[in-house]
């Protein structure tokens, strides 16, 4: 049996998905308040979990390749389309900050009962459809600045893979340290208890406060 197995059947999809969904939910990533707290710098879970996961999988793939278990080009590696991917990332970052989810986490939010996540998913369908409608005029942008096929950071910088991995591990460690300091200064990451709590009925003082703010903005 050669590895990867290249099994993209039903059981393979269900297994990967069940683990993916279970872990995302356990991390607290079904909660839009917890997810967006990353960008208010009060909860670094998004950075910590994503960076750790990327590095665990990247080091794992590196070990599998160096020990000859898998060959160099055996796993799918996306090719860069600089503008489309950079701007697409910007749109997703904006949508995440406004709506509270990304596609995967909206599915987790919906599966744990959040109505706002269902609405967000409807929005993704609408946005995807809009893209199809605008695709022809956008084609120039869609294919602009294409990079070499399946280019990786070691290719780009011309250094061995282990140096890139070591640099990323150092960057992650620095990010964890900075994150811990900022979390502590801003009241700590959101707990499951806080996330499950419903907001208090909006007190009239808050309404007045918000109205005053709105007037100030107008």
């Amino acid at each position, binding site marked *: 049996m050669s590895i990867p197995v290249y099994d993209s059947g039903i059981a393979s999809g269900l297994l990967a998905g069940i683990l993916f969904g279970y872990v995302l939910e356990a991390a607290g990533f079904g909660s839009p308040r917890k997810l967006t707290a990353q960008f208010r710098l009060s909860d670094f879970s998004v950075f910590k979990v994503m960076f750790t996961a*990327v590095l665990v999988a990247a080091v794992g793939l590196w070990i599998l390749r160096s020990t000859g278990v898998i060959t160099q080009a055996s796993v799918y590696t996306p090719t860069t389309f600089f503008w489309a991917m950079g701007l697409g990332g910007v749109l997703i970052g904006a949508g995440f900050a406004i709506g509270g989810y990304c596609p995967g986490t909206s599915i987790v939010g919906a599966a744990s009962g959040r109505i706002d996540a269902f609405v967000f998913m*409807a929005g993704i369908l609408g946005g995807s459809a809009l893209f199809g409608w605008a695709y022809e005029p956008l084609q120039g942008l869609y294919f602009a600045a294409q990079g070499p096929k399946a280019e990786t950071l070691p290719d780009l910088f011309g250094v061995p893979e282990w140096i890139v991995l070591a640099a990323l591990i150092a960057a992650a460690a620095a990010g964890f340290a900075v994150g811990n300091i900022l979390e502590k200064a801003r009241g700590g990451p959101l707990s499951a208890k806080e*996330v499950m709590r419903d907001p208090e009925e909006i007190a009239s003082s808050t309404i007045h406060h918000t109205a005053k703010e709105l007037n100030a903005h107008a």
Partner: protein
Amino acid sequence: MYAEPRPFWPPLISGIALGLTLLLTFVITGHGLGGSGFFARAVAAIGGWLAPAATAANAYYGPFVEAGKPLLSWITWEVVGVMIGAFAGSVTARRARVRVERSDGVSSGSRLAYALAGGLLVGMGARLARGCTSGLGLSGGATLAVAGFVFLIGFFVAGFVFSMQFKRAWQ
């Protein structure tokens, strides 16, 4: 009295578990995890039912319906799995409840409007980028693809900028 929800896993533990899940997915399938691809296939399928001619003529979604049964794909089974995993996990940890999750200063109506607007941007962004936080950021990042890091830089920069502009949505 409701029993208290079980605490979330610490980020390092979640990250290691997510990384091992991703590595296992690469070993089994040769590719990583995804999210937005399912929504694109769902649009192709819904378009194919509601407006078959217009969908077939569309430069982007036409090829999906031409290939036949756009939803019969690995990513669909994966998304069904995500729903099962997240549902089972949240129920057993007492973290599942039907509600609109919002912050104190935001009404449910505004929260849903923000969710719809955010979803629209994310849908457009994911099609433009050819993937989302899962497919490009996480899975692309793990292969050390330049594409994954270009995406992640755009995502984090815009996240901070728009988060400052839309503080009101979460205060």
